[in-house]
Structure formats: structure tokens, C-alpha cells
């Protein structure tokens, strides 16, 4: 029973870190794509 607590504690901590890292990288990718789109729009707009 005690080892279950140990297992749960380590699992939750890893899960929290993984989810956060995934969330940051997802937001980063989304912004990077948006930045590229906007850069293309700025370059292609009539002067």
C-alpha cells in the first residue's frame, strides 16, 4: 500500500511536468506558425 503512494507521487509529478512542457511547446508552435503567416502577409501586401 505504501509503495502505491510512492508510485502515485512520482507518476503525478512527471505527468504535471510533461503536460506543462507539452502545453508550452504547443503554444510556441502555434505562435511560430502565426508569426510566419504574418511575415508573409507583410511582405506580400501592396506597397
Amino acid at each position: 500500500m505504501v509503495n502505491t503512494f510512492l508510485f502515485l507521487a512520482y507518476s503525478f509529478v512527471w505527468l504535471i511536468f510533461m503536460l506543462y512542457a507539452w502545453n508550452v511547446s504547443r503554444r510556441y508552435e502555434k505562435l511560430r506558425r502565426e508569426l510566419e503567416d504574418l511575415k508573409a502577409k507583410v511582405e506580400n501586401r501592396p506597397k
Partner: protein
Amino acid sequence: MKKIFPPTVHLAVTLVWFIVALYMIFLYAPRELTMGEVQRIFYIHFPSACTALLAYFFVFLGSTVYLWKRSRAADDFACASAEVGFIFCCCVLVTGPLWAKPAWGIWWTWDARLTSTFILWLLYIAYLMLRSYVVNPGRVEVLSAVVGVIGFVDAIIDYMAIRWWRTQHPQPVIAGGPGSGLEPRMWLTVFVAWGAFLCLFAYLVRQRMALAELRRGVGALRRELVS
């Protein structure tokens, strides 16, 4: 910084450090006599708690510098520290009860240390909610910086709680006076684990600051397109 220590190298160092820390936690550190295996939760609970407190100190520092100098970098640093600190604070509030149940027989008690940690977690949420709900530029930075500075009082209370009052939470292991402390191999394991957590914290703050910079770039281009 990016050239000397690129993010990929930083991530690799963090992962290797964590592998070493996990080896030490499960194979090097001795089994604690009274609590047994469950005591090994301490090796993630303690570094998470120290990092969450340190993160709030960074929020305070960044907020103070922002209020004083109106430095955008300081605000980015405070915001990134708050977001990552919140993650570490979640780890504290998850691992604490998972250790408390087999050790004390209860999941939670409203003693000074636990309550002030819970308030710290709420402060992190308040700070982050403020950042996402107030859209007025300039105003959001000032309001969140004020929360960052005022909230630091709770971080001090949280740190001092087990020194000022008798609590259900164990007395301090570090700087706790005579009788406190750990077996030497446990000490070493704690410091290696804490180092790994600090390295991860630095990596996540870095990534979060890069995100803020990217967001600013997108905002500038949007304004350019509109004008």
C-alpha cells in the same frame, strides 16, 4: 545565453541530471527506518517546495524591478516565474498529501505550513488569472506586479511557518537548529534532486520567456498589418 547554452543542450543536461537524481533516490539513498519506502517522496516534495518558494521570490524580484524601472524583461521574467512556479506548487500539493496519508493517517490538515502553501498556490492562480483576463496593455503588468509584491508576504510566512509555530508538518531539515538534518547519503541525494529541479525550472522559465518574446513579435506584426 542562447549561444553559450542552447535550449537543446539545457534540456539534455536537465534530463541527464534527472536520471542521476532518480538513480540516487531509488538506489543510493538508504531506506528510512520508520517510514520506509514512502519517505522517498521527500526527494521530490522538498525540491518542489523549495523551487516553488524560490519562483515566488523571482516573481517578487521581477515585479519590483518592473514597478521601479518599467522594464519589459523584468515583467516577462516575473510572469514566466509565476507560471512555472505554479507548476512546482502543484507538485508540492500533490506529493504532500500522498506522503501525509501513510505518515500521519490523514491527507490534509489546516496547519500553518500547509495553509500558507495553499494560499501561495491561490496567489499563483490569482496572478495568472490577472495576466489572462486583464487585456489593457500597461495596466495588466502593473496590476500583476502589485500582486507579485504583496503576495511575497505569504511566501515569507510559508517559509517561516514551521519555525514560528508548532505544526503537524515536520520541522525544518535545513537550517533547523540542533537535532535537525539528515543522514549524509540522504543529504547528497536531496541536493542532487534539488539541482535537477532547479535546472528544469530554469529551462521552463527560459522557454516561457521565449514564448512571451514570440507573442510580442506576433503583436507587432499584427499592428503593422492593421496600420
